[in-house]
């Protein structure tokens, strides 16, 4: 907990800034659109329908969709922009809807009076319609504000800094204090924003200047607080830091800290980590230069880049294929770390011993009555196809769930088998037995340190530092480090520091 608190103001400010920008954009688009909709109710019906439909898209999917959408038009596709865009889309409906309703429910006699006293259409809008609709519009903004702040926690997987950092990271490393911190901070921000807009709304409704002023000042202060850290960052005018990416699981958190620490020690360039990114998000980021380095696995890359999931002739051959494919995207393999992190099918040791299960092939007889749990990706991946056809496995049910919940599900018997990760410390922590892939159905999954074009071209010292990591982490070491986080509750940073200290000796 204590190590989390110093970073809280930064993440809270980033979270707030992201939410406020999305909300402001939402207001700037929705209010005029809502006014138009109230004037042309028939033409507006499809617009409102589209906004409603967008609202029903799960928010995480909407944010994630922004990544390929932005990449397709050549815009920065990971980080702040896709998150802000997704949140903006999400904020549209309540404001749009309330503006249209607020405008449409103004008494006809008041509009006739406005015309009768000689107002032009613009004067009528400014002096009569907007002031009368304002409380309803503000109520819509209030709803949108709470949604936006809440949904902004989901900005983490697309690479934007937000309070979701604590929640996603905490879920993966079973750090419940971090999860609580993230949730509580997001809730506090949402309540604060809700209260301030509520103050405005009440002030406008009761025509109390004091309340309006208090609400406006509060919002202004909040906006200022949110934009201060980035502004200070600009003033410091640092060189662009080297960015280390990480996918959302413990091993990646530890490795990204090790890589970052190694880079910081070897070069004068500051580094920063961008964590809990989706698989394709992080690779796209590397290719486009928004991320400079991250750790990926041969099997994953071979499937993603080459569409190959067949057995490779050898580990070396698979690595050569991948290396060549990466080179075409301008990505360099800086080092092979020395371990494989492959999927393994695992089940509780007691169960495995009772049924005499040791190899994957032994599962064939049990599978039709069993449920298998896997992460979100596995069942969509060609490796799953290879695994099931090679061993003739047909499970009664396949359940996707968050990797952090898989092991618990296996322990409680909610699923009978899980597709775990071979270096996961939780295999030991939960006393699970991995089954041997004796027919080598799964391709090799050696961990590679990938370096992007900018790092290779501009930071030769950094590349050398990454190369120095080659062969320095074996599977046992990796599993120990994962367990230190997952079982012993150490922070990924502390585990990485210990490793680097050892490495330096």
């Amino acid at each position, binding site marked *: 907990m204590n190590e989390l608190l110093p970073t809280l103001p930064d993440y809270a400010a980033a979270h707030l800034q992201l939410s406020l920008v999305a909300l402001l954009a939402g207001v700037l688009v929705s209010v005029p659109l809502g006014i138009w909709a109230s004037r042309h109710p028939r033409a507006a019906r499809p617009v409102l329908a589209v906004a409603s439909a967008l609202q029903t898209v799960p928010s995480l999917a909407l944010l994630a969709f922004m990544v390929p959408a932005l990449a397709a038009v050549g815009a920065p596709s990971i980080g702040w922009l896709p998150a802000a865009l997704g949140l903006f889309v999400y904020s549209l409906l309540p404001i749009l809807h309330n503006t249209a309703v607020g405008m449409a429910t103004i008494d006809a006699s008041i509009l006739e009076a406005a015309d009768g006293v000689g107002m032009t259409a613009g004067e009528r809008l400014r002096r009569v319609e907007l002031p009368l609709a304002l409380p309803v519009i503000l109520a819509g903004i209030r709803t949108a504000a709470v949604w936006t702040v809440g949904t902004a926690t989901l900005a983490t997987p697309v690479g934007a800094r937000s309070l979701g950092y604590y929640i996603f990271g905490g879920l993966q490393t079973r750090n419940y204090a971090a999860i609580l911190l993230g949730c509580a901070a997001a809730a506090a921000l949402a309540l604060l924003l809700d209260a301030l807009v509520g103050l405005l709304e009440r002030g406008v409704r009761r*025509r109390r200047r004091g309340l309006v002023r208090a609400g406006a000042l509060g919002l202004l202060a909040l906006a200022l607080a949110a934009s201060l850290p980035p502004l200070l960052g600009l003033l410091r005018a640092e060189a662009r830091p080297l960015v280390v990416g990480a996918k959302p699981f413990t091993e990646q958190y530890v490795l990204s800290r090790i890589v970052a620490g190694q880079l910081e020690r070897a070069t004068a360039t500051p580094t920063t980590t961008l964590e809990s990114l989706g698989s394709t998000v992080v690779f796209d980021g590397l290719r486009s230069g928004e991320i400079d380095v991250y750790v990926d696995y041969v099997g994953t890359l071979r499937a993603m880049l080459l569409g190959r999931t067949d057995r490779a002739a050898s580990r070396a051959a698979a690595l050569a294929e991948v290396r060549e494919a990466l080179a075409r995207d301008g990505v360099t393999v800086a080092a092979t770390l020395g371990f494989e992190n492959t999927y393994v099918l695992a089940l509780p040791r007691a169960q495995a011993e009772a049924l005499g299960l040791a190899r994957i092939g032994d599962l064939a007889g049990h599978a039709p009555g069993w449920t298998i749990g896997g992460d979100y990706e596995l069942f969509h991946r060609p490796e799953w196809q290879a695994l099931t056809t090679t061993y003739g496995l047909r499970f009664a049910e396949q359940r996707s769930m968050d990797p952090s919940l898989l092991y618990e599900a296996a322990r409680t018997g909610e699923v009978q088998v899980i597709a775990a990760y071979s270096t996961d410390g939780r295999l030991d922590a939960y006393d699970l037995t991995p089954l041997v892939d004796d027919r080598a159905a799964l391709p090799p999954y050696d961990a590679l340190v990938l370096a992007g074009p900018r790092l290779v071209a501009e930071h030769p010292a950094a590349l050398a530092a990454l190369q120095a990591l080659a062969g320095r982490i074996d599977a046992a070491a990796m599993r120990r480090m994962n367990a230190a986080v997952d079982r012993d509750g150490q922070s990924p940073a502390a585990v990485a520091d210990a490793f680097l200290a050892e490495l330096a000796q």
Partner: protein
Amino acid sequence: MIALEQVRKTYGAVTAIADVSLEVAEGELLVLLGGSGSGKTTALKTINRLVEPTSGRVSVAGEDVRTLPGPLLRRRVGYVFQRLGLFPHMTVAENIGVTPSLLGWPRARIDARVDELLAMVELDPAEFRERDPAALSGGQAQRVAVARALAAEPRVMLLDEPFGALDPRTRGHLQAALMNIRARLGLTIVFVTHDVVEALLLGDRIAVMRAGRVVQVGSGRELAHTPADAEVRALLTEPLELAAAARARLLAEAP
């Protein structure tokens, strides 16, 4: 001062008014009298272009109303209607001062004008200036609506059943107040009502409308003596018969 020539307004297949020709002399009060659906309100609204005629010509002070944009025309013509439409988010003073502020009058002149008008409609400025419209009685609200219509010193006033929703006593007071103001300012007024008694009490002349057409125009006395048809006759004799019946009841019940 005001002239309608062969004015016609249709909404799709429905004809609201047809062949309406009327003249109102300067300083005259013309009543448009008719039941609901007779077209009296439509005819009235063509004068300040709240309704644009399908055909025909409308002029105010000798000028075709189409030479001015609608909003600018309406700033010069006072307009009061039954549902008032006081702006609920403005004080009484802001409501009254709205047209002058649209015209860009300086603050001090607007303030002075508001006080003057409140006094004219017999409301104490100190007491009513900062009130919300919601805190006014029906009669008070109607006085404020009249004051708002008069604010920019119009020469012409259009009133659409302005006192229709008031109790008879209050209506009487307001009718008297309006006649005072009219005499003081020399206003030209077109007054829409369905109430024959009100028409007879206020109107210099009365235009009887039915089914979108003007049936007859004349003073109350002319209408009574030479009615255009049986319906006009009935219209004019009805109040006398009612008064006679009421009087008979009163005398019969005397001890």
